[in-house]
Structures are given as structure tokens and as C-alpha cells.
């Protein structure tokens, strides 16, 4: 019982993620700045932003649904924190696991998007509403290739549990390499999930101000931003478990954890590079791209893994 509470509140739950997300945001912003030949923010900038927002007055639009409006950031935050509990980060085993937790994690990671949609919709502002519709439309485009790629990896391991998957790949070193195509596709889909350029359509600043976040301010916005950062970290953690499952047999637990951090920051670095490389696509172009290229390629990965499963020694 005590261990469970510790996992939820301290590690790998709330406190760990909270701090980690600030670090992740800093790495992302600093790297982006360096890519753009700027100095970038000092190390405490994400924390300073958080404190500044948290100390600001909350302003709720007159026509907004107050309950939903206030609950949305909490929903988004809790869902992403809950997801990390099933992802193995300090070794083969996650804090909790059961057969089928992959599906749970994927759906827990969908909840923030749905929450953003609700928040935007009930803000009753045109920009928020358009942003809400856009985020939902986009959800249907990137979710399919993302799920297919994660499932392809699970198919090869022949399990529905993330912890067992890690175990499988650990005992079959090199097998993770077969998922490299899936990894690439999943990374691109992740940009859509995290609403980053070129898929930052739901919060496209120059078009619809800030999309679903337009009406948010103060503490609520601080929570929303944190939940987005935590989503980044959790998404990257999921990828380390699904697509980069190696090195779990290192002798020292600290070494394993360090390796995990390296993996997560590498994924964040790639995401940052991608987001500084492109112009934002239009919604129709994004959907076209996802269905025309990403989804079929993800299917190729699934079929390939089904065949590989038959050929490769288990």
C-alpha cells in the first residue's frame, strides 16, 4: 500500500514527473534556441513561468461552463501522470502492470487531447471552438498510425503488457531494431499528439490565437502547460519502453535509470529538431499526409512483424 502511494505521489508519479517535465521543457526550449542560433532561456525559466502563471488572476469567460472549464486541466494532468505508472522506466518492470496495460496507457494518453477538446469547446470562444474541433480532427489522423506502430511492437513480443514486452526484448537483444520504421512513424505521430510544428494546427498562433488555450490563464493555464510537458515526457518514456527496449540488464539500477534518461532526452531532442525544421501544415494537408503515408507504412510494419514473428526464433 505504502509502496503504491509512493509510486503515485513521488516516483515515478507526480513529483518526479513534475520536476522532469520542467527539465524536459528547458531542454526543448534551449535546444530550439540553439538550433535557431539564439542563446535561449536560463535553466530556471520553465519554473519561473510556472510560478508567474500560478500567481496570476484566473479569468473565466462569462459564457464558459465553469465546472468543465476548471476540471479540464486537472483531467489532462492526472491522465498523463496515471499513464507513467504502467511504463517501465527504471528497469524491466513498471510500477504497476497487467496484461493489456498497453491499451490502457494509449488511452490514458488520449484523454488529455479529449480534455483539451472539452476545455476549448466549453470556453465558448470562436478561437477555442475552432481549436477544439481541429484537435479532435487531428486526433483521428495521428492516432491510427501511432497505435498501429505500438501494437506492431507488441505483436512481435506477443504480449499486451509493457513490462513483459520490455522483458521479451531484453532477452532477445537486437529484435527492437525490426521496429525502426514503426519508431520513425510513431515519432512523427507524436508531434501531432504533442501539438508541435508541423502539426501544431490546433493551437496555431497566427491563425486562431492559441486554439483551445485561448481563454485559459493563471493557475489553469499553468496546469495545462504542465500537463502538456508531462505528456511529452510520458510519450517519450513510452517510446523508450516500446521502441528502444535495450540495456535493462545493466548491473546497477542507477545505470539503467541513467540510460533511460539518455533515451528520453534523445527522443526530446529529435522532436525539437523536427519542430524547428518545418512550417506548419494545413489541417487537410496533415490529414492527407497521415492517411496517405503514415497509416499505410504503419500497416507495413504490422504485417512485417506478423511475418517476422513466424520466422524469428523465440
Amino acid at each position, binding site marked *: 500500500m505504502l509502496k503504491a502511494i509512493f509510486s503515485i505521489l513521488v516516483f515515478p508519479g507526480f513529483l518526479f514527473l513534475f520536476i522532469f517535465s520542467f527539465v524536459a521543457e528547458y531542454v526543448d526550449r534551449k535546444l530550439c534556441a*540553439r*538550433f*535557431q*542560433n*539564439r*542563446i535561449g532561456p536560463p535553466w530556471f525559466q520553465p519554473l519561473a513561468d510556472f510560478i508567474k502563471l500560478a500567481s496570476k488572476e484566473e479569468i473565466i469567460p462569462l459564457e464558459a461552463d465553469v465546472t468543465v472549464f476548471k476540471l479540464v486541466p486537472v483531467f489532462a494532468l492526472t491522465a498523463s501522470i496515471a499513464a507513467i505508472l504502467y511504463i517501465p522506466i527504471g528497469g524491466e518492470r513498471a510500477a504497476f502492470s497487467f496484461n493489456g496495460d498497453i491499451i490502457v496507457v494509449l488511452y490514458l494518453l488520449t484523454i488529455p487531447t479529449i480534455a483539451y477538446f472539452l476545455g476549448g469547446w466549453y470556453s465558448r470562444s470562436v478561437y477555442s471552438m475552432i481549436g477544439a474541433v481541429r484537435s479532435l480532427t487531428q486526433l483521428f489522423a495521428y492516432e491510427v498510425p501511432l497505435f498501429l506502430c505500438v501494437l506492431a511492437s507488441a505483436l512481435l513480443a506477443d504480449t499486451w503488457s509493457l513490462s513483459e514486452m520490455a522483458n521479451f526484448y531484453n532477452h532477445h537483444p537486437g529484435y527492437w531494431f525490426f521496429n525502426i520504421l514503426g519508431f520513425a512513424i510513431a515519432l512523427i505521430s507524436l508531434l501531432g499528439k504533442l501539438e508541435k510544428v508541423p502539426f501544431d494546427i490546433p493551437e496555431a498562433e497566427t491563425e486562431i490565437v492559441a486554439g483551445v488555450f485561448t481563454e485559459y490563464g493563471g493557475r489553469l493555464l499553468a496546469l495545462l502547460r504542465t500537463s502538456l510537458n508531462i505528456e511529452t515526457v510520458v510519450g517519450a518514456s513510452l517510446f523508450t519502453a516500446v521502441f528502444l527496449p535495450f540495456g535493462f540488464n545493466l548491473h546497477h539500477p542507477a545505470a539503467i535509470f541513467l540510460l533511460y534518461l539518455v533515451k528520453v532526452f534523445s527522443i526530446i531532442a529529435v522532436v525539437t529538431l523536427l519542430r*524547428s*525544421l518545418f512550417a506548419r501544415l494545413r489541417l487537410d494537408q496533415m490529414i492527407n499526409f497521415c492517411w496517405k503515408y503514415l497509416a499505410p507504412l504503419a500497416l507495413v510494419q504490422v504485417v512485417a512483424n506478423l511475418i517476422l514473428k513466424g520466422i524469428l526464433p523465440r
Partner: protein
Amino acid sequence: MSKPGKMTGQLIKSLFKKPATINYPAQRSGMAEGFRGKLKFNPKLCIGCKLCMRDCPSNAIVIRKVGEKEFEAEIDIAKCISCAQCVDSCPKKALEITPEFELANLDRMKLKVVFSADTGDDTQEKT
């Protein structure tokens, strides 16, 4: 023709380059010689013709007579647009432009600067 991620090379190179930005106000880049910033007044040369007052597009300068052939100048930095027309208009070159440009102040009243008739030193007007 179409290549996604055309800028990749440039971005990676930038990682190892010195940033183009500087950490203001710890570092300052300074301004080119001849930059038009704050005005400087030389009371010894002023003959009180007030041509500068007539030509100033924003009425930022006032020349006052304080004694026999003695003049002081009051410049409202909030109004001054640093065009330096007064410098051109002055027949005796009593006005000069300096490259000092960090003139912001938290108090609007402190933006009124008086150049004394004796020394030409500037003091913020007390009101």
C-alpha cells in the same frame, strides 16, 4: 525538387556556433558612430535664436533666457524623436547629438532634462 527538412544542416551547424544574440543587459552591443541618441547642449555657444525650437517637429526643446546672454535648454526626452534637426538648424553648433540611447526611465518626470546655463551639465528636472 521538393525536399523536406532542407534546413537540417544549417540547424545542426548552429548548435556549435556562437549564438547571434547577446545576453542584454549583461552584454551590450553598442551603437555605430554617429548614432542619433540623446542631445547635448553647449551654453557657451548658444545665442538664443530659438531656431531649434521653431524647427523641432515634436516641440521637445525649450531654450530659456536666464541672464544676460545666458541660456539654458530643457529637453523632453519623452517627446524627442532623435531626428537631430535642431543640430542642423543651430547656426552656432551649440547642440550636439550623442550615441547614448538607453534613456528609458520608470518615472515620466525624470525624462525632462535641463542643461544648465553655466556648465551645460544635465540635471533631471525636479517637480
